[in-house]
Structure formats: structure tokens, C-alpha cells
């Protein structure tokens, strides 16, 4: 169980303030999720032929230079690494599958947290305020961000179990609620070749969407199928390259609220996470209806 938050800036002039606006939203959800926190920020789109991977290592002193140099040597490519906390952003012209294989072979303890051209995912155990500090969230710029504060329900409090979960290039998922048929789904998805690192129900939902997208479905279609196939209580917020999407299950017990002004669209589990945004008092505020997909940006 958890808190989820999302902020999409319609007014690009505010992009430099994304972190400043978003961080208090995340921290406001601490009481719902004191165990761990995570955020996906969309910014700094890499150029043609390049990909951006977010990597993480449990050892804060891990020397990322090895990865930088190793990848360049092994894959005869260009690679740049930027370290933020115990995460690192790897920008390279190599192919994603090759990088992942190299990491698997040489540094299996390095986690690939996200990938795409814009997305950067940072997540760790600990209080949201500490996680935000670790990853310099307040200073961040970007066009949109989704975040999550976690109260682990049926799986352990680990970084790997934290949200957001990547589900494809520039795609990620945060979830508030509790699925009830994820164990069977996990078995099926494993048979389709997807890999799992945790016992977490959200990881299964993320893998499910990855699988649907791999099979050629658009995001909206994938979400429609998801509402049919996923059982339990959920509010999902999906980050995309252009914005985000929100969907709730048919029973719709887990609260969610949306707000929109000329400058931004925000989503949160509780209104108080939105209350402090500039213009919140005059914002249009509404609740997403059950089984209905809402999207912003060009998603």
C-alpha cells in the first residue's frame, strides 16, 4: 500500500522547477509509504542513435568508471556515465540488449532500473525525504515526473521491490493497491520469457504491460487488457515519454485525485500532495472514474 504522485508540466517554462514542485508532493505521501520511495523523471532527451539507462548498485562506493570503460571496450561504443547517489545514468550508442548482456556477464549485481531516451528512475529504501535528498530531487528539471512512496504489504522492503518499475523504453509503473492474482500471472509471464527479481505484485503488473506492448499493443489497449486480466484493487499511474496515464480498477476503493491548471496536470493518492502546487486552489479537481484510462501528453 502506498502513495503515488504524478506531475506533468504543460507550461515548458516551468521545467526548471519540476523538482521543486514535485519533491514536496512525494514527501507529503510519507505516512502512506514510509518504507521506500522512488521517482521517474523525464528530461534530457538523448540524441538519435543513443539510449539512456538508469543503473543502480547497493554499494554507494561502487566505481562506475569500470562500467563506462568496460562497455566501451567490449561493445566498441561510446559511453558516458553520470553518477547520482548510488545510481548512475549510462548514455551510449550501443544496443540496449548488448549492454544488458554485458552487465549480466560482468557485473550481475548492477541493477538496470530503467531505459529509454528520456526516463531516469531513482528508487531506494528509506524515508521519502531522505531518498529525495540522495538523488538531489529538488534541484531536478524535466517535463514530467511520477513518484511513489511504499508501505510494503506482502513482500519485503527492498530496493528491488520499490516502485517505479520499468516496463519498456521510457515507460514505468507505480501502483497503489494490492493485486490478488499476480502469482499465477507471474508464472504465465515467465513462460513468455519475462524475468522477475521480486515477489512483488506491482512487478507482475509492470511485466504484464511490457508483454502486451511487446506484442504490438498500444499503451491504451494494453491498459484496457490489463483491467480485464489483473484482479485486485489498484490505481496505476504509468509514466510515458510524453506524459502519464492513470487507470483504476472497477471496484475503485483506492482513492486517487487529479488536478489541472493552465500550467500543469497533477495526480495523487491524496489531495494534500497537490494542495501546495502553485494555483492548486483554483485548479479543476476531479476523481478518475473506475476502469477508465486517462492520458496526458501524447500518450
Amino acid at each position, binding site marked *: *500500500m*502506498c*502513495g503515488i504522485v504524478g506531475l506533468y508540466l504543460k507550461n515548458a517554462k516551468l521545467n526548471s522547477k519540476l523538482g521543486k514542485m514535485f519533491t514536496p508532493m512525494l514527501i507529503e505521501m510519507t*505516512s*502512506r*509509504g*514510509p*518504507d521506500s520511495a522512488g521517482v521517474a523523471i523525464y528530461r534530457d532527451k538523448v540524441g538519435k542513435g543513443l539510449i539512456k539507462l538508469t543503473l543502480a548498485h547497493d554499494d554507494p562506493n561502487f566505481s562506475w568508471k569500470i562500467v563506462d570503460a568496460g562497455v566501451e571496450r567490449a561493445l566498441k561504443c561510446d559511453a558516458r556515465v553520470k553518477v547520482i547517489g548510488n545510481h548512475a545514468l549510462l548514455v551510449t550508442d550501443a544496443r540496449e540488449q548488448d549492454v544488458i548482456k554485458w552487465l549480466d556477464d560482468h557485473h550481475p549485481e548492477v541493477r538496470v532500473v530503467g531505459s529509454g531516451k528520456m526516463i531516469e528512475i531513482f528508487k531506494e529504501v528509506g524515508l521519502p525525504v531522505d531518498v529525495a535528498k540522495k538523488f538531489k530531487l529538488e534541484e531536478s528539471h524535466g517535463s514530467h515526473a511520477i513518484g511513489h512512496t511504499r*508501505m*510494503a*504489504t*506482502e513482500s519485503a522492503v527492498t530496493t528491488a521491490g520499490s516502485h517505479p518499475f520499468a516496463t519498456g523504453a521510457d515507460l514505468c509503473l507505480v501502483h*497503489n*493497491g*494490492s493485486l490478488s492474482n499476480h502469482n499465477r500471472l507471474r508464472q504465465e509471464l515467465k513462460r513468455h520469457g519475462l524475468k522477475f527479481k521480486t515477489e512483488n505484485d506491482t512487478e507482475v503488473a509492470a511485466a504484464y504491460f511490457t508483454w502486451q506492448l511487446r506484442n504490438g499493443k498500444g499503451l491504451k489497449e494494453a491498459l484496457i487488457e490489463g483491467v480485464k486480466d489483473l484482479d485486485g*484493487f489498484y490505481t496505476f499511474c504509468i509514466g510515458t515519454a510524453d506524459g502519464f496515464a492513470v487507470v483504476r480498477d472497477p471496484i475503485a*476503493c*483506492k*482513492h486517487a485525485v487529479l488536478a489541472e491548471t493552465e500550467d500543469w496536470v497533477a495526480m495523487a*493518492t491524496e489531495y494534500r500532495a497537490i494542495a501546495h502546487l502553485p494555483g492548486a486552489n483554483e485548479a479543476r479537481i476531479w476523481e478518475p472514474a473506475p476502469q477508465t484510462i486517462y492520458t496526458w501528453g501524447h500518450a
Partner: protein
Amino acid sequence: MDANTPRTIPRKSYTFDDQTLSEIRRAATTGIYDIRGAGAKRKLPNFDDLLFLGASISRYPLEGYREKCGTNVVLGARHAQKPIELKIPITIAGMSFGSLSAQAKEALGRGATIAGTSTTTGDGGMTAEERGHSQILVYQYLPSRYGMNPDDLRKADAIEVVVGQGAKPGGGGMLLGQKISDRVAQMRCLPKGIDQRSACRHPDWTGPDDLEIKIRELREITDWQKPIYVKVGGARPYYDTALAVKSGADVVVVDGMQGGTAATQDVFIEHVGQPTLACVRPAVQALQELGMHRKVQLIVSGGIRSGADVAKALALGADAVSIGTAALVALGDNDPALEQEYQALGTTAGAYDDWHEGRDPAGITTQDPQLAKRLDPVLAGRRLANYLKVMTLETQTIARACGKSHVHNLEPEDLVALTVEAAAMAQVPLAGTNWVPGKGGG
């Protein structure tokens, strides 16, 4: 074949035993599931499968009387201004006025007060009699919210948010029309004589993250004075205990499948939820991992019968236990003296569990005024007090034999198990060995 040909001995089926056959016949006749009261009746691993080691050359017992063995418990000091102080580590579990007669509720209050412990309201709200007779009263906050109101909330000594109970983790309250008398109907805002349908989830919150907000609201309404308990059935005790703590609970109550109910489907009682023995250590482990053992108290219920059960639950890490079925038996439920009447009801003393029908000859699980007045609340209260006293003395006897000056100093290392299952569930060694099964698998 002639009459002299030997035949095999008639043989009944293990799978289709008499009980099963009678149930199939009943289902075919009525078209409705079997509804009954009490907890799981089938044979299950329980505390009998654990033994205390006692005193030895290396461990010395305490003398009775002179060398004190404390039994008091403080519940809910985590946030509340007025924690609950009990003289004994045994409380009376939640049972509703409606499922029980007013006389029975009064008897429970009287007995608990004599013994220095608490009673708990049930799925129907607080009666004036119970508040009057019970020195320490825990007020249940259930999905139905029957009779819920802020005045009673403020009159209570503690509030117990019920997420579930052992007999039916996932089921709501059930009271059939026979027991919806005028008074019950009035308290619950229901038409008289109808079957009360049960809400299984709370109407205005779902999940521990929302529970955190709800607990905060209850504290605000009562100005942070009273401890808040959270009660769960024996479904996922490890996770549920952790989540209850994270939601802000001061006390966690875990009720195993032997825990009784006034009425629910037999299949629910017998096939959903884990035995109490399997629930205690996971709950304690969750508290220990959060650094909250003894700071958030754990009350265990579901088939507690004697001081031996109390001592074992405490040894495994509980702070207190709760009794329901046992308390009713102490009052006079299922008494062999009423055998003729049980037979007239189609049952026998010790088996009577059709409490939902409201025809209890002992006057306990009924709303019929003629039957209910058979129970003398003063005498029955005395019986309950006697029983609680015996259980306390038994707990102390065992604790003293283990060298403890307070019953809370009992620990898992004082125990061994007689069966592999009990050893694995309680995480104590099989007697005569160093082996704790299941340690690898967690």
C-alpha cells in the same frame, strides 16, 4: 450366493465419513450453506503439541506464594494518554450483544471486573449494561458500524478496529432474523426479524495506508486518550502485524481459526485462516523486526483453554491472550445438565453450535427472554472470575517452574514440541533433538 457365504465387514469411507454424508443430505434438502457458531472443530495442531521444560539442575524454580510471579500487563502505551492496565494477561474477546443475551454480556463484565481484566463489545455496539458492569471495556470498530457513535467511543477504554477474525478472515458479521429482537433491531437500525447481511470490508477505508488515516481520525475524535487495537484473523499474521504497526496500532490482536463466531458458514470456519499455533511466531517476528516487540503489544486468541495455553502463547512472545468460547463455557454454555434440551434440539452437550437459531437452553446465545433469564448474571460472573483465576494460577505455576518472576519472561527456549508440525509452526525444537524444522524455508 447363499446365507453362509462370508461377506466383508461393512466399511465406511474415510473421505465420505458420516459427517460429510449428513452435510450433503442437509445441503440437498435446504439449498443453503450450513451456518453455525463456534470455531474450527476439526483436529488441528494446537498448543497441546508444545511442552515446557521446567526446572532442572541448571534452572531453578520459584517458590509459590513467597516468590512473586507477576501477571500484570500494560496495553497501548505507544500513543495513548491512558493505556490499559490489566491484572492478568487474559482478556475477554469481542462478542456482540445480539449474538449473546444481555444477561450473558453482564456476566462477562462482572467476571472480568472481579478478575481485573477487560471485556470487548461486538458487532452491535455498546450496551449500557456492559459499560456499567465492565471496569475496562474495549469498543470494537467493525465494517458494519452497527451502533457506532462518538459518545460510546469516548466512554470506551480502548478501541479495537476489526479487520477480520479467525473464524472467517474476510467475512462480516452475521445475525439471522431469529435473533433480531426489538432491542437488537433498534441498536443496529434494522427491521425486526430480518437476516442481517454482512459487510466484509470497512465502508470508508481499504488497506493499511488508508487505515493509518482512519486511526488518526479515531484518535482525533477521542483526543488521543485511548489505545487503538487492530484485530486480524489468522490469514497472513507476519505481514498483517507489520502493517498494523505501520498503520499506527498500539496493540495487535491475532485470532486463529479455532476462534469462535456467533454465526457464519461452516466452510469458512473450517477452511479459511490458519491455526492459532501457526500465527503466533510470525506475528512476534514481525514485531521484533520492526523493533516493536513489547512496545506494540500482541494479544493472541483462538482456542485458548487453560493456563497452559496462556503460558505457551506468552512464551512464544504474546503479551496477552483473549478468550471467547472458553468464557462462554465458563458461564454455562453446552452444560451436560441441559442434555435433555440439547437432544430436543437435535444435538448433544458439547456439540451445540447452532447459536444463530437463538434457542440456547443455557440462555447465553439467545435473545429469547424466557431462555435468557435462565442465566443469573451474578452467579455466572462469579464462575467466569473463578475460571480466570484458575487460568492465571496455572500460568503462574508453569512460569514459576521455569524460574520466571513475571509471566512475560517466559520465552520460546522454555518450550519443546511433540510433533514436527508444531516444531515448525512454533519454531521450537522437536523434543529430544536440536532440530527446528522449516528454519531454512522461513
